[in-house]
């Protein structure tokens, strides 16, 4: 064992845990469905002999996943689209709302971070608006925008703006005065200073905010799509629940997790690129 690196040992543990978990799940489900022996007529009439509509075992989910993933982009009408299409819709909404939020939050965060007057003036609004659950905006958004698609994007926009705004402001305000003085003694203008000194100095904090935001946006899109309906992974989960197709529900829950992980990993990569050691 000592010959293996820490990472390898951790990987072995992960795989072992996965198999143990799946095994326990599989066993507990099949133990549930075993129901043989003599049944009274009454029991037969109430359906006791048939398999219970229980939680599906992992083997069924795996089969389902194989089916869905081998043909992810099929489109057989409004209620039957491939998982790839559904996730695609969700990602499209998340990214649209998210980038609109970034376009506003990052410059505004710069302003708030640089000017304490702007910070004090805007802070009360931020403090009141920030704790509002993004879904609480939904009725208002639907009424004003009158378009469910755009409303979902608005909800993503409103939930991802705050971490980016606050982290940008925090990062910009925390830029070491020495670095700003370097810019000043080199006679850099306001824009040059912002781009060559303040932005790289604050970048790790800003990207951390962006990473938190994308995580929240991905959490919120599922709920928003459950409400809005039509397309998207959130709608898919709810639709399969209505179909009582628990296998698909479990499969889509896993997919939500995987996509969330990939989005986070992408920002993790960006974070490493802008990181620096003082």
């Amino acid at each position: 064992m000592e010959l293996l690196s820490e990472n390898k040992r951790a990987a072995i543990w992960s795989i072992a845990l996965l198999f143990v978990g799946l095994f326990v799940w599989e066993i507990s489900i099949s133990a549930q469905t075993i129901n043989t022996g003599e049944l009274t007529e009454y029991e037969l009439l109430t359906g006791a002999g048939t398999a219970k509509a229980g939680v599906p075992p992992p083997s069924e989910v795996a089969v389902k996943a194989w089916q869905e993933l081998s043909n992810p982009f099929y489109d057989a009408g409004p209620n039957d689209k491939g998982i790839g299409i559904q996730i695609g819709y969700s990602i499209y909404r998340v990214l649209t709302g998210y980038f609109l939020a970034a376009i506003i939050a990052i410059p505004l965060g710069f302003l708030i971070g640089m000017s304490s007057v702007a910070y004090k003036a805007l802070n009360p609004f931020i403090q009141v608006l920030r704790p509002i659950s993004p879904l609480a905006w939904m009725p208002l958004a639907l009424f004003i925008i009158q378009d469910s698609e755009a409303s979902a994007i608005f909800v993503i926009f409103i939930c991802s703006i705050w971490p980016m705004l606050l982290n940008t402001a925090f990062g910009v305000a925390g830029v070491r005065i020495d670095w700003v003085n370097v810019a000043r003694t080199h006679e850099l203008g306001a824009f040059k200073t912002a781009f060559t000194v303040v932005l790289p100095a604050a970048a790790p904090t800003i990207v951390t905010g962006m990473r938190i935001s994308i995580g929240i946006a991905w959490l919120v899109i599922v709920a928003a799509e459950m409400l809005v309906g039509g397309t998207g992974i959130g709608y898919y989960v709810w639709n399969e629940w209505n179909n009582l197709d628990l296998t698909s529900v479990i499969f889509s829950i896993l997919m939500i997790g995987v996509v969330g992980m990939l989005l986070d990993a992408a920002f993790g990569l960006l974070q490493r690129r802008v990181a620096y050691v003082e």
Partner: protein
Amino acid sequence: MANSFLSIEKLTQRYPDGKGGEFTVFENASFGIEKGEFVCILGHSGCGKSTIMNILAGLSEPTGGVVKMDGFAISGPSLDRGVVFQNYSLLPWLTALKNVTFGVAARFPDWSKQQIEDHSIAFLDKVGLSGDAIHRKPSQLSGGMRQRVSIARAFANQPKLLLLDEPFGALDALTRGTIQEELLKVWSGTDQTVFMITHDIDEAILLADRILLMTNGPLARVAESVEITIPRPRVRTDIVEHPNYYAIRNHLVQFLGKRSAELAGQTSEEGETHSPETVRIDKTQDAVDEQPILQAVKT
């Protein structure tokens, strides 16, 4: 003094003391620095050395008085006045070379990329940095190497006045010695005017043409200007043998240990200027005009 390359005239700095009154760091300080001169300023913490430095750099405004360079009053920071900060102030996300080209590109905006890079590499080479090291980030360099980069950045810009704010304060004694010699090497052969803050008497004697001595604050003033009558080029191991070395050193120690406190806290009359008294100690000439201060030191 008014004709000096750099002239500091009646500089005064006051801060509100938080009780409705005012706290005067120094007032009516006046002195001049000639072109090509290397001047060190010595004094205890809190006497306003860094404040003077920040005013010269244009990073802060004095309460009163003016600083003139080449006959013009300075206002705000300028590329004509380069600064080496105590904590290096390198941008940690840029490599050593990029930190220097950052400054050079700001100073010479018309230069081509290649020209900027060659110029920067040449100056890094002068402080003993070359090869792989210049492509490393500051965090991958030792404290001494970082300060070398910082010095290279300042010299590469060829400012009219170079301000060094305790540049070796954070370095260990051995590294400090090496970099002091490198600083001398870069400086000699240029007509770069340098104004440097230091706490280290030996460092000041090694580097400076003239040492300005400040009394303790508040109400600090630049009391003396001591000429360093040791010929250049100076080498650390040789200058201690020079007859003037210990005479000057003793004078400085005596000032900082005793007289800086005795002279402190004197308020000035309206319109009075505090110009430093020039002190010249030279034991190589016949010691006819030996000063009473020196005798006190020897007993």
